Every structure is written in C-alpha cells, then in structure tokens.
C-alpha cells in the first residue's frame, strides 16, 4: 500500500475500508542473519537501512514491548544539526540531510517541520560561544545566523525582554532545525523495514546473549532461542542490562528526563526556543499543545517518571522567559530513561565479542539522530567498518582519553551532562 493524496481522497469517499495494517506480526524464525535488540527509533532505522542499503533482509527486530513504546514515543521531537565538535558535527549534519528526504523515502508523513530553532544568549561570553558554534555549523555546511536582541524580538515578540537576571542579548538561529512527529518516525521506519522483509517481533524480550568462543551465536528471548551471527544492542536506556547479558559493563548511567505539555492552544510559538541558562526549551505541537522540558533530574533512574523539584525548576524558567505560558493549563508530564554517557556523546561500535555491536549513549538528544544512527549502525553491522560520519563514536575513547566529545566543556565524567 502506498500513501498518496489520491488514496486519501478515495478512502475518504469510500468509508476508509481500504487501509491495511502497516506491518505484519510474524512469529520469530529459529535463525536470522542478524537480529537487532530494541524496537525504538534507532533499532527500526538500523533494520530499515540494513535492508535498504545493504540488502540484508533475513533479519529481525526484537522488541520487549510494542514498537515505539520507549523513548522514541516519549521525546519532545526536536531535530537539529547545531553541534560544535568534530565527530558530532558531521554525524548530525548527515542526519538532518536524511530527515529532509525522509518522508519521500519512507512514503510516510513524519510531519517534519523545519520551523527553526533559536538558542538564546544572555552575556558576552555566551554570545561568543554561540558565534563559535555558528561558525562550526557553517563550516560543516549547515545553516546558522547570529541574531542580535532586535533580531530575536522580531521572531519572538512574546518573550520577556525586561528580565534582569538573564537579559536576552540575542540568539543563535538555525532555520533548518525544527520538530517531527515522533511516533510517525518509528512507524514509518517499521513499515519500510517490514515491506523489505524484516521481521518486527513485538512482545519479545531478550533475556540472554549466547556467546561461544568469543563469538555471538544468538539470543535467548521470552519467545524462545533465536540464532544469529550478528547482534546489535540498540536499547537506549536499557543498554546497561542488555550489555550485562554479554558480560559487559558500559560507560552508561541511566537517568530520567521529564517533559510537559499544556492543553491545546491557538498557534503562538512558531519556532523551537531554548533558554539554556534557565534549563528550558519549548515548541508548540501541531495539535496546539506547548511541549516543553529542561534538564534531567540528575540521579540514576529507571522509573520513567521524575520528581517535583525538576518540574518546578523547568516551569519557573519557562514563566520567567515567557510569562504568557503561566496562563496555560498543564495537561501531562512524563519521563523517559536516558542512556547518559560520560562525555554526553553517543557510541556506535563493535564490542570485544565477535558479531556483537553496541549503539548507545544518546543522552537526551537521540531523536534527531534516528536516521543517521540507523544508517551508520547498519553500515557497521553489514561491513564491519564504521561509517565515515561515525568514525569517532568509539567505545574505547573513555579508556584511552582519545577523541572525547564533550560539547558542554564540563568534563568527560558521569553526572555532568
């Protein structure tokens, strides 16, 4: 089934009886050429590109719950390529390019909306940092415009410009940044992978990884043993537990990140706005809800819910920046489990076990990475070599100290990002 305007029109006129499920619900086969553990955004995109770019179609995605039930369906959907360090710059740039062609490629409306992102700055120092980042973005071939206070005011008239503590001096504007519909991204990749023959197996928890003579031979699951010579661990916040099944300890600590949404309002926030000094960022969903968040709660957690101090902190910052949101009613808050790495940058690499690959460390920014992460993970699993835009995402960089990517400049230690 292909989606098109004509198809929608036809279905609309004939009672919408012609829509089919977007993917099959197959039983697991006893053996595959490769299995991917985790049916989030990264696992599904890995499967899609393994099939599409590398012709590997005898593969399966094993998901313990339902597709897209993890962080890929819990995030605040910001998509951007405004990184400042080699390693991240080329990777996220590649990801944004893939985003720009994604809907055509998947024949799926992921509602990618390049509404622009503005990172505010408040002092000479933060202005210089923004200018440096803007130059890094431009050098990478992406777009960045340094706005002064009046420039920000034109775009964002509703901010409080009289605030003394963090006066708005300007902003780093990234017009190609924006948002996308998170669930649709998971569904689009799932459908694309399924159409190419990939088995998407839900309610299938991996409980063990079988290793013989230093080589991976398969996995134990709640739906039986599945053999495979190549296994990718793509489980985000659950990376620690899954790696432990292979006897590994990872440089990952899982933390909770919260987000919030208000009742639906008329369009009022046209961009994504970030207020780094206050730990607050916001956008408006197409349904009208103001979607916002801030920092992680800063303690290890698997609860998928946070505590009140962080909620309070985020909302205080929001009301300081744009007092008008104080009038909106908050509808929901929720949390997700973040795979935090010591330097705040991700890992896409081989492990010491032959055939076992790891994809983790996405921290609070892995949604925008979904296309490139799958692209590079597929390349690595198919060819054994890192893809050229992910060569720096090495697992051993913490041990050797070579190639750390600490965007915030706070140090490559846990609990600093």
């Amino acid at each position, binding site marked *: 089934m292909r989606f098109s305007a004509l198809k929608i029109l036809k279905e609309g006129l004939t009672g919408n009886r012609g829509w089919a499920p977007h993917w099959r619900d197959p039983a697991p086969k006893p053996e595959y050429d490769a299995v991917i553990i985790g049916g989030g955004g990264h696992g599904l995109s890995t499967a899609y590109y393994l099939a599409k770019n590398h012709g590997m179609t005898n593969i399966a995605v094993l998901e313990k719950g339902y597709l897209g039930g993890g962080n890929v369906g819990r995030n605040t959907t910001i998509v951007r390529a405004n990184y400042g360090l080699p390693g991240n710059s080329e990777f996220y740039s590649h990801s944004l390019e893939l985003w720009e062609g994604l809907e055509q490629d998947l024949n799926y409306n992921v509602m990618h909306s390049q509404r622009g992102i503005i990172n505010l700055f408040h002092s000479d120092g933060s202005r210089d940092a923004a200018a440096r980042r803007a130059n890094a973005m431009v050098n990478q071939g992406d777009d960045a415009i340094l706005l002064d206070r009046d420039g920000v005011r034109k775009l964002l008239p509703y901010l409080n410009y009289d605030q003394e503590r963090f006066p708005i001096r300007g902003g780093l504007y990234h017009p190609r940044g924006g948002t996308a519909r998170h669930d649709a991204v998971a569904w689009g990749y799932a459908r694309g992978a399924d159409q190419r023959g990939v088995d998407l197996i839900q309610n299938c928890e991996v409980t063990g990884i079988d290793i013989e003579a230093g080589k991976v031979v398969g996995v134990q699951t709640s739906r039986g043993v599945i053999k495979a010579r190549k296994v990718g661990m793509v489980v985000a916040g*659950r*990376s*620690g*537990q899954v790696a*432990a099944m292979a006897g590994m*300890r*990872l*440089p*990952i*600590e*899982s933390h909770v990140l919260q987000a919030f949404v208000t009742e639906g309002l008329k369009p009022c926030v046209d961009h994504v706005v970030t207020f780094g000094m206050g730990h607050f960022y916001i956008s408006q969903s197409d349904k009208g809800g103001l979607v916002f968040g801030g920092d992680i709660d*800063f*303690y*290890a*957690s*698997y*609860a998928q819910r946070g*505590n009140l*101090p962080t909620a309070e902190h985020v909302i205080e910052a929001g009301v300081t920046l744009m007092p008008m949101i104080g009038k909106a009613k908050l509808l929901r808050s929720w949390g997700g489990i973040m795979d935090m790495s*010591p330097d705040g940058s991700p890992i896409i690499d081989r492990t010491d076990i032959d055939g076992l690959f790891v994809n983790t460390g996405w921290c609070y920014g892995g949604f925008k990475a979904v296309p490139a992460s799958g692209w590079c993970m597929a390349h690595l699993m198919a060819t054994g070599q890192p893809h050229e835009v992910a060569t720096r995402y090495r697992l051993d960089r*913490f*041990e*050797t100290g070579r190639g750390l990517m600490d965007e915030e400049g706070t140090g490559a*230690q*846990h*609990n600093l990002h």
Partner: protein
Amino acid sequence: MRIDCPLCGPRDRREFTYQGDALALDRPDPEAGFGVWNDYLHNRDNPAGPTRELWYHDSGCTAWLVVTRDTVTHEVHRVELARDVKEAGK
C-alpha cells in the same frame, strides 16, 4: 523523594546533590592500569533496582552520604555517612 540524613533527619531531595555510584569510595591503586581505572571512572553496573550511591547534603550539614536506593521505585532504603562506610571498609 526524601533522604533521611543521619545528622539532620529526613529532608527534601532539593537539599541534596547526587554524586554518582558509591564505587567512588573504592579508588584503585594509582598504578592499577588503564582497564581498572576505566572501570572505576566510566563503566557502571547501572542496575535497575537497588543501588548504592553517593549524595552530598549541600544545603544541610554538607555530609557525604551513602544512599541505598531503588532506581525503579525511587524508594530510599538506607542512608549512612560515607565516612562510616569508608572506615568500616564496607
């Protein structure tokens, strides 16, 4: 989340700062080698369930605490002074 500080009594989580896994109390020998130091500095068990971690009571008595806490329920099971834990060699 409330933490029962042995010196101050039960206090709100806002008064404390999380300082990571309590393995920081078992600092390896300086010559132990890259692998051991990498394990100590970066690699984590990262358990879903009970875990021991360091918290700093910065808005209270400034004591360092070893908190046994469940990462799935956020329940705090036990709070000890880090000094006591270290001296007992636990």
